[in-house]
């Protein structure tokens, strides 16, 4: 019974949570990666979602992933829970709870943690988690939290507390049917028998078009009807059982019980109505198998022994057919048919694997088993392992392809690199030279701002002329100046004109020199950019095939090790599934053998009675 509470409570919450947390991430870096993760999560592809989420983490952290403690927020918990990585989900949620987050977020994380604990049967931890929830709770989870609290209370043997909570939830549309049914169960467990029955009666009359609500309504009627049947209140039981829909997960059992309610009142004709409907259904169902015997039993009690005998024969035939089918299933499982069916399911990415497996010969009889949480968990694990195996195989192939790429790149670039490096050294030399020149000129101009040096701004002609004049000046010794005073004056005039020109034009020349320096800066900038781009490209080229060897080697080793682990775990999980399936099929086969034995005795008895009836008839004539 608690399984219902758990499943329902757990399933309710994933969708709104994703949306809420996603909005929060919009303001974070690497939004694209997170939003892509959500794209896959909303399609139920949790592994792909987790890859993107973790890649986003690595990129934003700039280092290798260090485990779930680094994962931010509830999104990580959601993904991990959905991918059935409870350990990681627990760590992620715990990190949120312990972190500096708003009260509502902490409470939501506690709620999910409690949900996970409860689903795993860790009721005490679930109780501790919900008890830590205080203060503001997001509106979207309030009802579900209350429902979870009630379920935990029921599971912990505190039905009165569950009753109080569930009473407040009766108007909650999202829990329609479930809260009503659970309240009935809680009342019964708390000792309020009459109130419990009345509540189950109310739950059995809920008017809804929702499939889940209709199913829980049927369940309420079945539980109440069978309770009344057990207490021999046959008319009331019949009335309640007949409220169960003719199609639905509870119809077979309700039809069987409805027939027994009639039969118990010696109304065998009436009992034949539900039993005959049931007997036409799929013979693998235990209720149908019982109906196959109940129908001839009713005919027998009505005195129609020949028909009863015929029906017993038909039942024997049906049982024989089902036993043969079970033998074939058992043989198939022995030959690996179950696991190969599961592999096909995984290959088809079949989300409704349980429905489709029911139609396969090797799994035809495993409906009950497939509905059990443990078997489902095992199948899901097996399917996940199968998926992991394929991924690891594919990555091993990818690594081989990457190695080929590296080899080809190396073969292409290695011969080209020496020439490229020579060109680079040339360019680098130019850049250095120009930089030095530029710095020297800039230094001089800066010094000239403090102490003007017009001589430094002479043109080449002026400099040549100045040197020429200086040569003449050196030749003009004091003695010669006296001999050729005219020549001396001309040299002095020339020197004066030269000095005048460079001093008079100094400001313009200084401004021009600054402008030229700026132009030089621009040219130098372009050269530096060219060198940077060259360097970057050179680095990218080298990086495209160098320095990956060790990382790829480590990855290869890890992939190889993981392949081995997956194979071993898959084999163990497969064996466990096969063992569970074989036990279930054997149990069902034993039950069918019992029914066949009963049918044989009943058949003989029917022939006997038919014979006696014939003799009595003749005697009377």
């Amino acid at each position: 019974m608690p399984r219902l509470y758990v499943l329902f409570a757990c399933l309710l919450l994933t969708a709104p949570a994703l949306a809420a947390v996603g909005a929060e991430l919009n303001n974070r870096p690497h939004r694209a990666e997170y939003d892509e993760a959500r794209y896959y999560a909303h399609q139920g592809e949790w592994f792909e979602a987790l890859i993107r989420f973790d890649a986003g983490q690595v990129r934003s952290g700039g280092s290798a992933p260090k485990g779930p403690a680094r994962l931010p927020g509830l999104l990580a918990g959601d993904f991990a829970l959905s991918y059935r990585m409870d350990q990681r989900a627990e760590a992620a949620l715990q990190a949120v709870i312990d972190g500096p987050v708003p009260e509502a977020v902490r409470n939501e994380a506690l709620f999910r943690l409690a949900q996970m604990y409860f689903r795993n049967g860790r009721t005490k931890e679930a109780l501790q988690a919900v008890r830590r929830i205080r203060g503001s709770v997001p509106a979207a989870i309030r009802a579900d939290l209350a429902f979870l609290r009630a379920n935990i209370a029921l599971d912990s043997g505190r039905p009165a507390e569950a009753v109080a909570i569930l009473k407040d939830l009766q108007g909650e549309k999202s829990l329609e049917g479930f809260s009503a049914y659970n309240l009935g169960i809680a009342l019964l467990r708390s000792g309020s028998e009459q109130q419990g029955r009345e509540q189950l009666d109310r739950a059995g009359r809920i008017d809804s078009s929702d499939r889940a609500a209709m199913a829980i309504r049927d369940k309420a009627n079945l539980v109440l009807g069978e309770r009344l049947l057990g207490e021999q209140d046959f008319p009331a039981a019949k009335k309640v059982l007949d409220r169960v829909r003719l199609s639905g997960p509870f119809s077979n059992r309700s039809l069987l019980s409805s027939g027994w309610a009639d039969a118990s009142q010696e109304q065998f004709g009436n009992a034949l109505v539900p039993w005959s409907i049931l007997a036409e259904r799929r013979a693998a169902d235990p209720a149908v198998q019982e109906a196959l015997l109940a129908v001839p039993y009713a005919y027998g009690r009505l005195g129609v022994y020949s028909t009863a005998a015929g029906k017993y024969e038909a039942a024997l035939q049906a049982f024989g057919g089902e036993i043969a089918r079970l033998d074939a299933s058992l043989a198939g499982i022995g030959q690996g048919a179950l696991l190969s069916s599961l592999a096909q399911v995984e290959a088809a990415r079949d989300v409704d694997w349980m429905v489709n497996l029911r139609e396969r010969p090797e799994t035809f009889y495993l409906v009950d088993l497939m509905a059990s949480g443990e078997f489902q968990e095992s199948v899901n694990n097996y399917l996940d392992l199968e998926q992991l195996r394929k991924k690891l195989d594919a990555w091993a192939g990818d690594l081989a392809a990457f190695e080929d790429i590296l080899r080809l790149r190396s073969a292409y670039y290695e011969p080209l690199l020496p020439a490229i490096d020579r060109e680079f050294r040339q360019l680098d030399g130019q850049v250095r030279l120009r930089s030095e020149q530029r710095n020297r000129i800039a230094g001089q101009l800066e010094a000239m701002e403090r102490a003007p040096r017009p001589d430094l701004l002479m043109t080449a002609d002026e400099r040549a002329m100045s040197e020429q004049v200086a040569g003449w000046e050196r030749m003009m010794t004091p003695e010669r100046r006296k001999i050729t005073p005219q020549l001396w004056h001309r040299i002095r005039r020339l020197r004066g004109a030269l000095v005048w020109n460079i001093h008079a034009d100094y400001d313009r020349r200084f401004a021009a020199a600054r402008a030229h320096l700026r132009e030089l800066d621009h040219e130098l900038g372009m050269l530096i950019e060219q060198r940077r781009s060259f360097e970057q490209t050179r680095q990218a080229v080298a990086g495209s095939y160098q320095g990956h060897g060790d990382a790829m080697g480590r990855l290869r080793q890890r992939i190889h090790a993981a392949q081995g682990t997956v194979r071993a775990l898959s084999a163990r999980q497969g064996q466990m599934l096969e063992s569970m399936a074989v036990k279930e099929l054997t149990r069902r086969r034993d039950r069918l053998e019992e029914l066949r034995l009963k049918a044989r005795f009943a058949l003989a008895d029917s022939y006997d009675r038919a014979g006696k009836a014939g003799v009595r008839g003749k005697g009377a004539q």
Partner: protein
Amino acid sequence: MFILSRRFILAIALGLLSFPAYAGDASKEQLKSLDEQVQEIKAETLNLAVQMRLLEEKLLYPSTTQVAVYVSLDDAQKFRPDSIEIQLDGKQVAQHLYTARELEALQKGGMQRIYVGNIASGDHVLQVLVAGKAAGGAGVRRKGTFKFRKDAGPRLLEVRLAEPDAAMISLRD
């Protein structure tokens, strides 16, 4: 998918509540231990997947030449894309037909990486062709052309689809 699963599992749970648990057959401890080991190998494989993804990007789409195009929906209630085609510098690089699940994922705020590739630095043209249905069910076809520049780092572009009356396609960095 989780909606489908939820309904389905719920139905199964409802159907078989009163049947016995089967863990007794293959002891609960065995199942638990195996489940924990499965979780561990999932974590290891996940880590490997991330490393492989990063390695693949580094080798095939280095940041100096990488360009990635993402698709998102702006006004999810009013427009339902059926298909999209992406052209880069006049060459078709991606096209996609949306399934109901993918559409739902976009409507809920997911973002699809529709293309990742390499281009040279400089100016480029991205063309987006979208076909879908407007709020009233009428078919809509739209084309958007965008210029963008690729520098030294990776270039991530988001094609945001909106309701047909306004600027239906926009490009965000």
